[in-house]
Every structure is written in C-alpha cells, then in structure tokens.
C-alpha cells in the first residue's frame, strides 16, 4: 500500500499519537511506522511524575485527614470546615496527578505510548466519583497500569484487579464469603450479616476480560465473586508493610471448589482467584473483546472486522502479549485508511490543541472546569465502563459550543506574535485542506485563525 509519507505522518501523529506538535510531523515523516513501533517498550508507559506518591501513602493520608477532621469537629473548632478540607486534599493530590498526566501528554514525543496507556487506564476504569478512591486514581494508573501495558495481558489484569483502588472502587475489599470463618465470627457476635459483593467479579468478566457476549451466567458471576473473597486491603492501623496494601484475608475466603464457565477451581485460597483470572485472560472471548476495543479506540467506532481478527489472532498466538498486539495494530493497513473516523473526546481535543499551540496548562484551573463542562470530568468516568468511544456522544450541540468557546479562550492566551497559517500546517500537515487553509488565511485576527484551526473538521477528528 503506497500511502503518501506526509499523510502517513499525519495519521501516525493524530490517530495513534495525541496530535502533532510543531516540528513533529517533519521529524517522523521519514518513517512513521518505525516511529510508532519504537515506542513499544517492555518497560511500559512513561510515568507522569518522577517520584509519584504511592496509593498506600494516599490511603494513610486520607485516613489521617478523616481522623483530624473528626477531632476538629469534636473540639468544635470553627476553622475546620470539612468541605474546604476535603476539597483541598482532592485538589492537591488528585488535581496534581491529573495535571502531571496532562503535562506528560502535551509534551511527550512518544505520544503513541501515552495513548496506548490511556486506553488501558480507561479499560480498567477506577473513577474518582467515589470519595474513597478519589485520591488514588493517579497512583492506580502509575502502579497497576503503566508498567504493564506492553507485557502479557494477564499481568495487567492481575495488577489492576488486585490493586487497592480497584478493590475499593468495585467494593471487593469488604466482600466476605458467607461460609467463611470471618462471616461466622461476625454472626456469633451479632454483627450485621456479612457476605458477598459481586461487583468486581461481574465487571472483571463483563468489562475487563471475556465481555458480555461470552455466555456466562449469573451463577458464574456469583461463583467468581466467591472465588475472589479474601482479596482485600490491609487495615490502616496495621504495620506499614500491610496497611493500605493488597492483602489476602484467608479468613474471609469462601471455602470450597468453584465452577466458573464450566471449569472447576479447587479450593486454594488466593490461588483460586488467580487461576480464574489466568483462564479469563487466556479465553478466546477475551482476545476478541480486547481486539474489538483496541480497534474501536484507535481506528473507528465501527471498526473493520479484519483488523479485529488480526489483533485477536496475535493475542491468541502470543499468549496475550500486548506489545505484539500493539505491533500488529501499527502494521495493519486497516489502521491507516485516510478517512478520519474518530471524533476526539474532550481530553483528546484539549491535549491535541495544547500540543498544536505548544503550550502546557500550568494550573488545574485551566484544565478541570473545561473538561467538566464538556462532560469529561478529570479522573471521573461515570461508570466502570469508562468514557464512551462513540463520536455521537461527544458531538452534542452543547459540547460543540463549549469547544468553540474554549478554542477562542486558548487562542486569546497563546497566540501573541504567532502565525496561525504556520500552526495549521504544523498541526494538520497533509490533512490541511485548501478550504481550511484559505479560511484561516482570511481570519481577521491571529486568535480567530487559531480558533478556526482547532474547530476545523479535520482537527476535531483523528
């Protein structure tokens, strides 16, 4: 397939990457595919912060904050407004993590690697919509997702499923086997009836692995929930090597053999849940589900079946090696069709705009309100399914108006002394149409020119 190298560069930078920065298209035009492949590294994705705070530290800090607030309240301290305190904590911690992530996205030259990592962050959504998880979404991505995005899927699956953030977000940490020792103990003490919570088990099957079409039943979900009992978090008063970290609690584990999707799993404590995850990762249903989702994210809301099949094949042939799956994606001609079939999400639109204008937001105030207004509140996907992919979702009339308003504001702040015609060539490359080029050249002001570029159909898509 002979694809013009300048067009290939534009596709590489916008569809696979996060949008071209000035000079980038020229640098990668010699070998766009090679540029993408070189970003697939066994060490995984980049870390937004050089020395990120751990989720353990955050959980302990949150606990300390709660205690402090209780004490202040008990003492009747008028200065201790709990809302201000929690808002400050969230702004400092969660806001800082998010701003760092935006900073990485707007400056990196390995932006395919970053998009690939963001895809997996969304696949294994942990959302700050839950107060307990609000300060550990960033650490979750740093600890469970980023190091594992080019390795075997099973590693990524186990790392995310066992991470305290996921255990809290999907209510696994408190799930107790109804016939476990812990349940009997609580029963004897007349405490509330303790038992199963099937939230994580269901979403792990439906969203993270085999997908809803795989033919599992309610009984399979319940059995998997039983197998996962005991996957919990060390109490915050426990010694440092346990507190706030993953902890298997044998006493909470439901004893017995489990049968899930026709397979038997002998009694075996934590190994039982791991064995289920291993089989789920190896399932052809998972290969198909992931292949479909990757193709849908990178190429089209309605992805070419032949591309899905290639990704699926590589997954099965390599035991779920995500680096090889990424290489297959990059090599597939289906992924290089010139037509732009993805409408950018608000995050993608903002990041690509900042990259085009070569500016990075300096404070959360430049990021959070606008994302919130466009329907993509930082770290706060509405459900475990993550942010939607469908263009129709994001191209609502209200959202388009907000994109116009924001484009004007960005232009007003960042266009002094710069040529919008030049920025348009740098950002869109071979995708810059004569109509858009002409319209920008006729803009009354530089600011108007940049707003036209950012709102052009070619810039709104990838």
């Amino acid at each position, binding site marked *: 397939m002979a694809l013009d190298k300048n067009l290939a560069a534009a596709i590489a930078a916008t569809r696979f990457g996060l949008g071209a920065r000035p000079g980038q298209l020229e640098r990668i035009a010699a070998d766009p595919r090679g540029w993408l492949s070189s970003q697939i590294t066994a060490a995984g994705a980049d870390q937004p912060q050089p020395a990120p705070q751990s989720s353990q530290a955050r959980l302990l800090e949150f606990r300390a904050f709660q205690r402090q607030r209780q004490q202040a309240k008990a003492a009747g301290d008028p200065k201790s407004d709990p809302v201000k305190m929690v808002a400050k904590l969230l702004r400092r911690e969660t806001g800082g993590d998010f701003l760092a992530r935006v900073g990485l996205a707007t400056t990196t030259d390995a932006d395919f690697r970053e998009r690939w990592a963001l895809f997996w962050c969304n696949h294994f959504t942990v959302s700050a919509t839950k107060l307990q998880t609000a300060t550990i979404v960033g650490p979750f991505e740093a600890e469970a997702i980023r190091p594992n995005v080019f390795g075997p899927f099973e590693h990524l699956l186990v790392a995310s499923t066992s991470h305290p953030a996921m255990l809290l977000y999907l209510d696994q940490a408190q799930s107790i086997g109804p016939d476990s020792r812990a349940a009997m103990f609580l029963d004897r003490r007349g405490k509330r*009836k303790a038992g199963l919570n099937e939230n994580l088990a*269901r979403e792990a099957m439906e969203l993270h692995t085999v997908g809803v079409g795989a033919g599992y039943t309610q009984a399979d979900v319940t059995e998997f929930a039983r197998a996962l009992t005991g996957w919990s978090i060390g109490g915050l008063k426990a010694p440092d090597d346990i507190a706030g970290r993953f902890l298997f609690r044998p006493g909470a584990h439901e004893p017995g053999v489990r049968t899930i999707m026709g397979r038997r799993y002998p009694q075996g404590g934590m190994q039982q849940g791991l064995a289920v995850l291993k089989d789920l990762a190896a399932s052809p249903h998972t290969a198909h589900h992931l292949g479909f989702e990757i193709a849908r994210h990178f190429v089209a809301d309605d992805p070419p079946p032949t591309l899905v099949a290639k990704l699926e094949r590589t997954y099965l042939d390599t035991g779920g090696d995500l680096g090889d799956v990424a290489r297959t994606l990059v090599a597939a001609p289906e992924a290089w069709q010139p037509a732009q079939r993805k409408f950018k999400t608000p995050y993608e639109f903002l990041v690509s705009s900042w990259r085009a204008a070569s500016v990075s937001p300096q404070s959360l105030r430049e990021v959070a309100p606008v994302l919130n207004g466009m329907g993509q509140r930082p770290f706060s996907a509405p459900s475990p399914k993550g942010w939607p992919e469908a263009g129709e979702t994001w191209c609502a009339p209200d959202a388009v108006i907000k994109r116009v308003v924001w484009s004007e504001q960005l232009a007003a702040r960042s266009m002094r002394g710069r040529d919008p015609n030049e920025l348009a060539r740098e950002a869109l490359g071979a995708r810059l149409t004569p109509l858009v080029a002409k319209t920008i050249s006729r803009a009354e002001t530089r600011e108007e020119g940049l707003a*036209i570029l950012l709102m*052009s159909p070619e810039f709104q898509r990838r």
Partner: protein
Amino acid sequence: MTQALTALSRRRALLAGLGFGLTIDFLGRSAFAAAAGVGRRRLVVVICRGGMDGLSVSPPVGDPDYASLRGTIAIPPFGAPGGALKLDDTFGLHPALASVHALAQKGEARIAPAVATPDRERSHFEAQDVLENGATTAYGAETGWLNRALQAIGPTQVKAISVGPTAPLILRGPIEAASWSPGTGAERDPRLPGILQDLYADDPMLGKALASGLATEAMAKVATADAREALVQPDAMSGADGAMTAQADAGGAPLRPVLRQGLPIARRLGATLAGFMVQEGGPQVAAVSLDGFDTHANQGSSQGQLATRLAYLDAVLGGLAEGMGPVWKHTVVVAATEFGRTARVNGTAGTDHGTASTALLLGGALRRGGIVGDWPTLAPARLFENRDTFPTLDMRGLFKGLLAGHLGLDRRALDTAVFPGTAAVAPTAGVV
C-alpha cells in the same frame, strides 16, 4: 387508524411526491396532528443510571417480607423517624423524595413498582442500551426510541432537548435534538459561528450540532432568566432536609455543606429545563440523565449514599414541576432505571444488580390512580430467580402508554417503528 390528513401531513405527502421520501412515521404523525391540544403537551424522560433501587425509591413497607429482606437498609415504616412517606397501605416514598410526595398527594405523581426492560443480563451497559434503544437486545438498534417517537410524530412539530454535556442514546437518531448543560455562554467573536458554519457545510455531524447549539444558546438566555425568577420563592419543599444530613460512604465522612450547595443547583437545573420547555417554540420532549445509583456497598437507609442521590433527583424533579408553571398540567415526566437491585441486602450493606425496579411518573397530565402495574410481593416464592423483584410490567409497555396517551402516537407506529417487534406488548392503559 384512518384519520383525515392535516394540512401539515398533506404538505409532507406533497414533499414525498417530489421525491423527499416518506417513512413509516406517516400514520403516527397524522394521528398526533389530529389529536386536539397535543401541541401543548410536554414529555420529560429522566434516566437514572446505575440500577436505581426501587425498593428504596418506593419502599413497600407494608409488604410482610420487606423489613426482613432489607435488614439495616430497610426504610422505616410510616410515622417512624426517617420513615417512608405514605402513598397507600403498602407503598411509601423514600423520605428524600419529599417534592415527589407532595405531588403524589395532589394526584400528580404515581409509581410503577415492578417494571423492567426485556433485558435479563444484569449488565448496566446492556440494560441501559435496551432502556434507551427500545429494542429487545443491546445493540438491537442504533437509535433511541425517543428519537424514533419524534420521527413518528413529525420533526416539524416537536423539538427535543437533552440535558447534559453528552448526547444520550435515547435521543440519538435522524431527528436532531438540541442539548444543553449549565455553563455555556460567554462574550465571543461574533464572526466565528458563521465562519464555522461555512466550514461545516459538508460535515453533517458538526454542522448540525453547531447550528443546534447556537439556537439553544439563544434560548438558554431566556430560560435561565425564567429559572431565576421561578426560584426566587423560598423553597416550599424543604422536607428533604433529612437527606441533606446524608453521610458520604467513606468512613461516614459528613459532607453536609456540599449537599446543601448541590440541592439548590439541582433545583435550578430542573427549573432551567422547564424554562426551555415553556418557551414559544421550545422543546416539547426532553431527556435527562442522572448517574450514581449503583449502590453495591453502604447504600444507607433513610439517610446515606442513596438518600443523597434521591434528594438530588427530587430537587431536579421539584424544580422542573415548579418551573413549568401553568404548562405542568400538560406535562408528563417519567423517571426510570435500567434495572432494580437484589431484594436482599448483600454482605456489604448494599445491593447487587437485580431485575424489576420502580419508575416514577409525575405531571399534571397524569390520571389519578394507584400503583401502575401489579405488585408481585416480596414473598420468597415470588422473587425473580430467588433474588430480585419480579417484573410484572414491561418498560416498553409503560413508555408506549405514555406516547400513545400523551403524544397521540398510534399503535402501529409504536409496535413497528418506535419499539420494533413489540406488537405483543400492549401500551399500559390508564396512566394519562
């Protein structure tokens, strides 16, 4: 139906003759146009995402099995502190739903306590798809049933709007719907909209969205002014105060002031939507989404996590009812969810994904009456798969009943275009 063609549908028929095409919506539209006074009618669909717990929304505190199944999360009986707000001998409303209860006492709110979509998979995402696409299965239709209902009515007569920054599936489809969320509207370059409209000449997706967004923006200026006016009155429904003392789920952290800020905003949201809908030429149909109903752990009882969400829902509905003013008597609102939750409290003081739940019906156009559909009871033998409220009413039948009775859609359009392949599902009678 063999109603005479109105002037409008004749015009459409003429256009069809010129090659503009005419779809199956023809009968539906002529029936609508022929029904007297239908032009004033308003319909609002509120989608409560996450699986709203019907047994807490309209707790059947008179059902002999309710208290034992629910344990610590049961809503206390009528008259007890934090108790259910009485509807009849069996059912009450959650104490956070004070505005809805006030309407119910005027005959302007009812419940359908055991309603479900045809989906039985207990997946949020599939069930929400089915709730919104009106098909029998997820991915069974690319468009939303409310959009297809608009097609059946005829695009020139009824406009629709969704509230929120993203477009929900229920309103997706060929008929263009407006969308609005708080926060747009700043002083701007007056040339840019025109320039972009030219750029989007060959881009139907962006072109339509921009045009609709600009029109809505103009309307919003009026609507938000109306909402401010409507809410100058002191809050007459402050009975929801109990819910404001709700505890956040993280170790019982009280977030009272946050919620106090949230509820007036929610009321204003409802009132602003009403402000759109009462305007001349404003939308007659609206879709609103609220999420956060997935209460697997520590869902609370008359206070707590779910109470907080219900107080928010109540404030939106209360603000909407108030803001509609005289148009309220021509209005129907339905609040529905993708599925209910398990009848039994789970091991983490919450509930897992279930089957039937409650739909709330509100509006001055409702017929007075008791519960909609049958109550299966919570007797052990009557639970669906020994875990969930048994569905006795098909959600599609309920929606069909509203579209037929309120917007005048005829049976054939409902059975084939709006909810394809549902000839066997009768529109629920006696609601409007």
